[in-house]
């Protein structure tokens, strides 16, 4: 073990964010009824389609210019597929994606390639998304070359490195010579190289050690303030998403179950799944941990190849009712301004007229207080 001064240096300590002006009606990215079904094929000589994995199954989402929308949900619920379908890295099987007025599904391959200059992606695992044989300089100039952007590329590389908090000397180094957090900075520098309007960040911090996640979260926020970026941030960690996003959308088994401004979602979660998810997120504070009630879910996420009928959550829902839940799929309804929920019983649950099954509730832990 050797002392290795961090190339990233000390991060400026942020003092809260500038008040950004966001007009909710100025929508940069609008997704309607998005569907991605992966065919399941069987057969040896003649392949036939025997079913489909409904990874994304009818999602509506609007991302206002300059804002951050967070998408959370558990493993396999379709978050990554959604993000990729928005950029057409996987072909949607239904629905529309409109970016800055352009219907992306109408574009041919060349038009789409040019469009991607405006929409970039940051991936979960910076090591896997960077070519180990490419120097950082080459990683960062590649998009400039691909889009025929002139000017002084070396100067641009220095500028990009500076923006993400890496020293100019990083340009000649290779991905394996960096720590995880530094590699993620390279991934972010690559994504902003073309000055895109939208960045889709898929689990941007979940592969990083806890002590450096905040560096990357703060960097994303600083870049947004500085460059006016719009973000779609996809993550399974609700605490991270709530911190970074203006609006949070909660996904379950290919569909959205709830969407609300970040604070409102935390203060008044209305969907039973959101409630269970929130009560399951551990909070590093013994007093809070002991005083809060927990709603435990039973069982696991059902298969997206055979989603349950009716409300997709009904097989695990602690609030399930005799009627409607198992045979009628609830639509997203606006229950308060800007707060939509897909549950037949949201109003009754909010008003306390329907309680969760007793066996699902873990009362606060008083024995150890």
């Amino acid at each position, binding site marked *: *073990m050797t002392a290795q001064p961090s190339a990233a240096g000390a991060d400026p300590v942020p003092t809260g964010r500038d008040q950004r002006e966001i007009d909710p009606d100025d929508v940069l990215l609008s997704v309607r009824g998005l569907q991605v079904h992966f065919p399941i094929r069987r057969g040896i000589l003649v392949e036939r389609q025997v079913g489909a994995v409904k990874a994304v199954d009818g999602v509506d989402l609007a991302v206002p210019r300059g804002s951050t929308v967070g998408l959370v949900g*558990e493993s396999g619920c379709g978050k990554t597929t959604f993000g990729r379908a928005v950029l057409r890295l996987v072909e949607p099987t239904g629905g529309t994606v409109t970016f800055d007025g352009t219907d992306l599904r109408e574009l041919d391959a060349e038009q789409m390639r040019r469009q991607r200059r405006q929409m970039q992606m940051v991936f979960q695992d910076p090591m896997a998304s960077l070519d180990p044989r490419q120097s950082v300089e080459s990683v960062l100039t590649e998009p400039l070359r691909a889009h025929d952007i002139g000017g002084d590329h070396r100067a641009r590389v220095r500028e990009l490195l500076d923006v993400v908090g890496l020293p100019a000397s990083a340009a000649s180094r290779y991905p394996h010579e960096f*720590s*995880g957090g530094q590699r993620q900075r390279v991934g972010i520098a690559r994504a902003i190289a073309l000055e895109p309007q939208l960045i889709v960040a898929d689990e941007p911090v979940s592969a990083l050690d806890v002590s450096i996640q905040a560096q990357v979260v703060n960097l994303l926020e600083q870049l947004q303030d500085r460059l006016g970026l719009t973000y779609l941030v996809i993550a399974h960690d609700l605490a991270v998403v709530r911190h970074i996003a203006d609006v949070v959308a909660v996904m379950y088994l290919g569909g959205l179950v709830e969407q609300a401004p970040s604070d409102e979602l935390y203060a008044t979660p209305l969907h039973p799944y959101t409630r269970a998810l929130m009560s399951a997120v551990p*909070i590093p504070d013994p007093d809070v941990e002991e005083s809060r009630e927990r709603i435990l879910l039973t069982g696991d996420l059902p298969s997206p190849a055979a989603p349950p009928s009716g409300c997709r959550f009904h097989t695990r829902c602690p609030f399930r009712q005799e009627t409607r839940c198992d045979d009628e799929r609830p639509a997203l309804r606006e229950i308060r301004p800007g707060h939509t929920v897909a549950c037949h019983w949201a109003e009754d649950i909010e008003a306390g007229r329907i309680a969760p099954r007793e066996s699902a509730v873990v009362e606060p832990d008083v024995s150890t207080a």
Partner: protein
Amino acid sequence: MTNDPTRPLLAVRDLGVSFTRKGAPDVRAVDGVSFDVSPGQTVGLVGESGSGKSVTSLAVMGLLPRRNVRVDGRVIFDDDDLLTLPRERMRDIRGRDMAMVFQDPMTSLNPVVPIGVQVTEVIERHQQLSGDAADKAAAELLDRVGIPDPTRRLREYPHQLSGGMRQRALIAMALACRPRLLIADEPTTALDVTIQAQILELLKELVHDSGAALIMITHDLGVVAGLCDTVHVMYSGRVVEGAQRRELFARPRHPYTGGLLASVPRLDAARGTPLHPIPGSPTDVLAWPSGCAFAPRCHHRVDACTDGPPPLENIGGRSLRCVNPLPTTEEVPA
């Protein structure tokens, strides 16, 4: 066997582990680790990737490879120093008194043997049951850890179970020997939070009902906040701070502990609460012999921090390895 309740069940003293390799300097993965675990108590070991949590627990369990590994210090369980026991004695104790649950249940389950056979095997070995009685006990055990339809599940293979279910099966097997000490190494890290909550609840219940001691290894401060009685924070192979849970979270004294608490976003924090990252990365460490390993990243560093390795001191009921600890009055930014 002693039944003095004031005595710890397990006392780890100055534990060290070095990995040796020909032609390369030794890797001191764990050094000077000391902590106690009492019956019925849950002790948390927290730290980032590579901080030495797993190596510590493998050393306690006697599961480190023998070749190219040097273990020093003492691991006192009952009246025995486990590090000096003959192999067979250690194997007996491991089967009877201590059990371990790992992060990835797939590595501890045999993929080509039905779950039922694997669980019954442990029961037959430890509870002197056989045949139908053992099968029945196995089904009861799966039921107890919350696996629905246990008789059917017993006939299935590990790959037919979900991750959460496999972890439950593994916990069932660990419980089959009715251990007095259970070590869980990141048992929920590979699971979704809703499943994690189920498993943590299960572990809490089991500790409560059986009076066994639990060592919980995790990188997640949130998990220890809800589960552990005492918590030891590791950095680069050493314990840097250890305290009773409430003390640790309310008044972290080591700058690394304080830094972690200020850098992780809290679900319940007001929006706009800034995060205060720890600069650098866990690879920016100073070799302990030359000073505090955390010094390159520490905002509380003074010159004396790099004069030599700070000792683990007992200060006001907590253990602390720091030259210039955070003041007791310092408000931790939430």
